[in-house]
């Protein structure tokens, strides 16, 4: 069964993807598979291990299983302040 996932992009990832968000239909529920797909599509430089992940606007573990309707953001190291 496919799941509808909203992906949010920030900073250098938004620049490389040339968008701030998009919706994808995915079969694999792992964040790892989703990021691998996005990385290939948009040529993201960082490994998943270098990024934090937010699911539904909450920081989440990399092994979180995606569910239909989730929003996901892969976050580069924070550089505010």
């Amino acid at each position, binding site marked *: 069964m496919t799941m509808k996932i909203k992906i949010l992009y920030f900073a250098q990832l938004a620049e490389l993807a040339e968008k701030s968000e998009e919706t994808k239909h995915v079969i694999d529920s792992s964040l790892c598979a989703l990021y691998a797909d996005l990385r290939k599509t948009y040529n993201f430089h960082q490994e998943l291990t270098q990024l934090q992940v937010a699911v539904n*606007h909450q920081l989440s573990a990399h092994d979180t299983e995606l569910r239909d309707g989730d929003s996901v953001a892969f976050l580069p190291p924070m550089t505010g302040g």
Partner: protein
Amino acid sequence: MLFRITEKIIVPEKLRQTMLSSSAGAYCSYEGWVRDHNEGKDVNSLHYSAYEELAQTIGCKILHEAESKFQVESAIVHRVGDLSVADIAVWVGVTAHHRGDTFLACRYIIDNIKHRLPVWKKEVYSNGEERWIDNNHCGCSDPKNLQF
């Protein structure tokens, strides 16, 4: 407790007014400014972007931690968008009964902002190049290693 992400110019005098309290004996603030150089390059401006929904959660969590740990009242305002040299990028305000707690809490808050708040900055250089900063370690200790 106040946490705000804003595109507007930060005016510290106005924010200080919001911190006034007859029970406070000390006030400490921190301002992060846009400087004109970094790592040997001339910086013309900075662009900040934020993940606002998550920033609200994490910003309030940092303030809550500081207030529990140091018995203070505290606030953060972080600017996003295009900033010029000398603009204030972030403001932190802390009040407490005594000065010691305000210094410690102010340091705790800004160090945790730099490591945990989902905000990113891009430097725009005088030669026209741009670069997203990929770490925030310059001049900033990992708050996990600091003894508060």
